[in-house]
């Protein structure tokens, strides 16, 4: 062959080197990430998963604001010890409406993927205000201001609109609302309707009274409402042990 390849060609041509470097490092992503968008079984077919209500969504924003994710993951891995402690392993389907998802590979506190319903609202409130009053060995910081800070509900609709832009099926039009009724049922669809965001938020907070204080809606109301829904949407008693094995 006449072509005598030399590294020197690349090494002395910065433009060519940049293009080839980019190609080389994108292979990993192309092979590992891109196929997930095309594989049918990436998101398991499972009933019950819905987007968060306006109140839960505000709670999730507070969860992220306070950096809860730096110590708590929301991803139960398929190991026996995790199943015994936290419950069924997390499904991709369960975080399909999370932007960004709260998975993680580092825990200082326990995993929270299925904390919903495990403790009472009053436990969560007391534990967030003063963790060591409930769990003496805890290293979690105190979050007393959640109780005393009124929840800013003025932008509830705007936050849902932003999530709608990245694919969460919150509805703006009647047609979108009707589609949600078909997909999630009427009760859920009403909660997902952006024009009613503030009304829905106030109703849920007043009815649930998550922080035990009826005088107003605090950030605690929103955060506890969010924590209490985590991992509760799928009823795993309806599925066989190996229902999700063929998906992987």
């Amino acid at each position, binding site marked *: 062959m006449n072509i005598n390849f030399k590294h020197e060609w690349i090494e002395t041509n910065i433009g060519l080197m940049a293009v080839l470097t980019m190609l080389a490092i994108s292979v990993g992503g192309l092979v590992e990430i891109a*196929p997930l968008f095309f*594989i049918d*079984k990436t998101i398991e077919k499972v009933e019950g998963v819905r987007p968060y209500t306006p109140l839960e969504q505000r709670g999730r924003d507070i969860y992220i604001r306070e950096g809860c994710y730096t110590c708590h993951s929301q991803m139960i*891995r*398929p190991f026996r010890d995790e199943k015994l402690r936290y419950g069924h*392993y997390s499904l991709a389907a369960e975080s399909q409406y999370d932007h960004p998802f709260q998975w993680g590979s580092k825990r200082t506190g326990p995993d929270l993927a299925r904390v919903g319903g495990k403790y*009472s609202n009053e436990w969560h409130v007391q534990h967030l205000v003063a963790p060591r009053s409930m769990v003496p060995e805890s290293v979690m910081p105190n979050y007393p201001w959640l109780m005393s800070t009124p929840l800013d509900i003025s932008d509830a609709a705007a936050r849902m609109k932003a999530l709608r832009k990245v694919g969460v099926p919150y509805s703006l039009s009647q047609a979108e609302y009707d589609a949600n009724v078909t997909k999630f049922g009427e009760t859920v669809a009403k909660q997902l309707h952006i024009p009613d965001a503030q009304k829905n938020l106030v109703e849920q907070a007043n009815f649930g009274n998550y922080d035990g204080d009826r005088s107003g809606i605090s950030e605690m109301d929103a955060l506890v409402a969010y924590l209490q829904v985590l991992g509760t949407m799928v009823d795993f008693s309806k599925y066989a042990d190996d229902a999700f*094995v063929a998906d*992987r």
Partner: protein
Amino acid sequence: MSEQKLQSQTVQTTGHAWDGDLQEYNNPLPVWWVYTFYATVIFSIIYWTIYPSWPIGKGWIGGVSDITYVNSEGETKTHSWNTRALLLEDLNQAAVAQKPYFDKISAMSYEQIAKDPEMNGFILSAGKALFSENCAPCHQAGGQGVIGFFPNLTDDDWLYGGSYDTIHQTLMDGRRGYMPAFGEVLDGEQIDQLANYVASLSGISHDSTKAAAGNALFHGETAACYYCHTSNATGRKDMGAPNLTDNIWLWADVPAADAAEGKVSAIRNVIASGLNKGVMPAWSGRLSPEQIKVLTVYVHELGGGQ
């Protein structure tokens, strides 16, 4: 100079010269490194054929390795290798080891389990693990509870009953405490009278004139406390209304208040604002029937089982 010339003849250089005489050797890779690299390439090809690997269209290559296990119904199941199947294999192997114990637990009555030394050992270790993860956050590691929030499980005072059956029911379905806020229907004077009466029931120093008036309110139709707490104030376990005569406190932090007035005031606060707490979650959806049975015996044995 002659040495330099010799090297430049045996080792190839990149051909460049900087500053007149600075040259860069172009040494070949060490042989061991090259063969290790080839070995990793071969390893990866073998790995691809054994385990799930390359995506193809809407699916992927499953790999030739399988996972086979016997499930709880005794059926042999085979799945192509993945971590979820691996978990099932692990769980079912563990279940086989624990099966003799759990079979015994299902078959035995609570009393039989409590009397059997071997089963008792199993309850202590398995129950402690379950209690630590699921119950201790509220009831604390030793079951002593937190005044004002969660009941003590080690004494013989029970809101809903301390028999095996009622403990089991509490675990399965959860509980929800409720007492109306009497601040909305009674005036401050009346609430003070009631608080003094309730203090008198437990032998706490009180104002006996107020207590006498409180007695009338307690048994009259205005406050009607006797509806839930019964006319001798010993409570109703079917609705979780506590016994008021035993000087054991959960909601009003009477023990912490030092002066008599502080103790009465703690009781007054509970009467005035009522209770809409005392929520215990239901565990039937989270724990298996055998696990709940283990916990029932464990809690019963914490000290106060009846």
